[in-house]
């Protein structure tokens, strides 16, 4: 993998921007080059949110903007409808099937249906749905080493948030275990 382009979309509060940031941190810790670019606008909780992550293993990232993505994560239905076309042929689409009851329409891409919210609820913390999804993504497309995801988790979930570390690590592997 020289360059991997990823795109995360959902509604505000679903942890979409955080998923992209975790991945960008992990790439930096692994001495890769990376950019994280959020959509921005007059937005609010419950509105749409998305971010683009470009990871380059050797050269600096030439462009933080993308016209197609190797991996796309959609957390709600409007995002599936809007961004299914962004997946490049042969690329991966991760659909949060807890929130999206429709199927993807393309047959030239790999589609993974991940019931992220249901898995998170089963684990006892609904707010780990984005970690479940990120884990699914990394297990299918190992764009960053898992240890580096652990490293950013350990930095994020420290101090007052330390009790959230174990559940997030479990959530990260939860979908992979079910497969």
């Amino acid at each position: 993998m020289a360059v991997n382009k990823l795109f995360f979309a959902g509604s505000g509060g679903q942890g979409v921007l955080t998923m992209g940031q975790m991945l960008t941190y992990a790439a930096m810790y692994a001495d890769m080059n990376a950019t994280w670019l959020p959509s921005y606008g007059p937005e609010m909780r419950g509105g749409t949110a998305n971010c683009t992550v470009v990871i380059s293993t050797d050269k600096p990232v030439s462009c933080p903007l993308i016209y197609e993505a190797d991996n796309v994560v959609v957390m709600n239905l409007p995002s599936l409808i809007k961004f299914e076309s962004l997946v490049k042929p042969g690329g991966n689409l991760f659909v949060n099937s807890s929130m999206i009851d429709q199927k993807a329409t393309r047959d030239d891409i790999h589609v993974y249906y991940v019931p992220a919210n249901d898995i998170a609820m089963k684990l006892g913390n609904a707010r780990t749905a984005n970690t479940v999804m990120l884990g699914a993504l990394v297990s299918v497309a190992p764009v960053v080493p898992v240890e580096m995801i652990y490293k950013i988790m350990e930095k994020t979930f420290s101090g007052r948030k330390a009790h959230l570390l174990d559940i997030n690590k479990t959530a990260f592997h939860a979908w992979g275990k079910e497969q």
Partner: protein
Amino acid sequence: MSEKVLMKGNEAFAEAVIRGGVRFYFGYPITPQSEIPEFMSRELPKRGGKFLQAESELGAINMAYGCGAAGGNGFISSSSPGIALMQEGMSFLCGAEVPVTLLNVSRGGPGIGSIQPGQADYNQVTRGGGNGDYRIPVFAPASIQEAVDILYEAPSIADKYRNPVMVLADGLMGQMMEPVMLPEPKHAFTSEEIPAAKPWAISGSEKGERSVVKSLRLQPEVLEAHVEHLYEKYAEMEKELEKVECEGLEDAEVVFVAFGTMARLAREAMELLEAQGIKAGMIRPISLWPYPYRAFDGISQKTKAVISVELSMGQMLQDINLGVKGRVPVRLIHRVGGMLPTSLEVVEKTKKILEEVR
């Protein structure tokens, strides 16, 4: 040796000027750079500095005028329409020879426009919107690291020439995150050190001659001599501050000219074109004033077109034409209003242009 950190553009810009010696911030919030005043209000008081939210952009630039006249290293950030409001102040700062570091995180225009990225401030920042004969050096970095490195040096450049210095970023750079290495903090002048470091400043020192900082010169011969003096300074800046990055000009069939984020987009378009057998080169002006006209002498005889890739209706074309001097056809690929082209779009439009000029 500092370690790599992941920072949002706006926060990295603010950290860089603090490390470059800035201790005073004046501003008024405006998207897409409001993280800067937020960061400054939190960080400056911790580092012996002062944060002041002005009542308007006019207030902010004139507070910076006062701060600079007193010898302080001030910093102002805003976005396009806010920078427009500060033009009068910039003319006064240049006339009075007061240093300040300015940052424009530009958005779509004209007027209040949109909050999405734009580059249509090119004429505003390179030609100036204030009155009189004056110049402001403008740097347009293409990555957060380059922006950090330039903003770190900007306060020293402003002090050296006793002139404002501007950095032009765009909304994309302000909002994106990228790993950066932060430089070691420079020494910031304390108020006790200012009289010796800046003897021209109104520092309240009782010793020595009276300092006068002003732009008003009622006698024509005095003002004429002053403007001539300013232009000797600007000639020095033209010699010393020009910055450009050229790539693959030797055998390029097409040469892109782009700055800021658009240079990164053009960079990717070069790779895509090369995969299709079309050699593309790039001239990336890092200083927009002084503009790197001489870089265009490096364009080879094989080049069939020079293409400006801009988020404006082609405001940089005038400078490109001054550099190209009619040797090669000059064309434009643009989007405006906060819309962004993709690298694929640039590739397709480039191929059309090449067919047309062949």
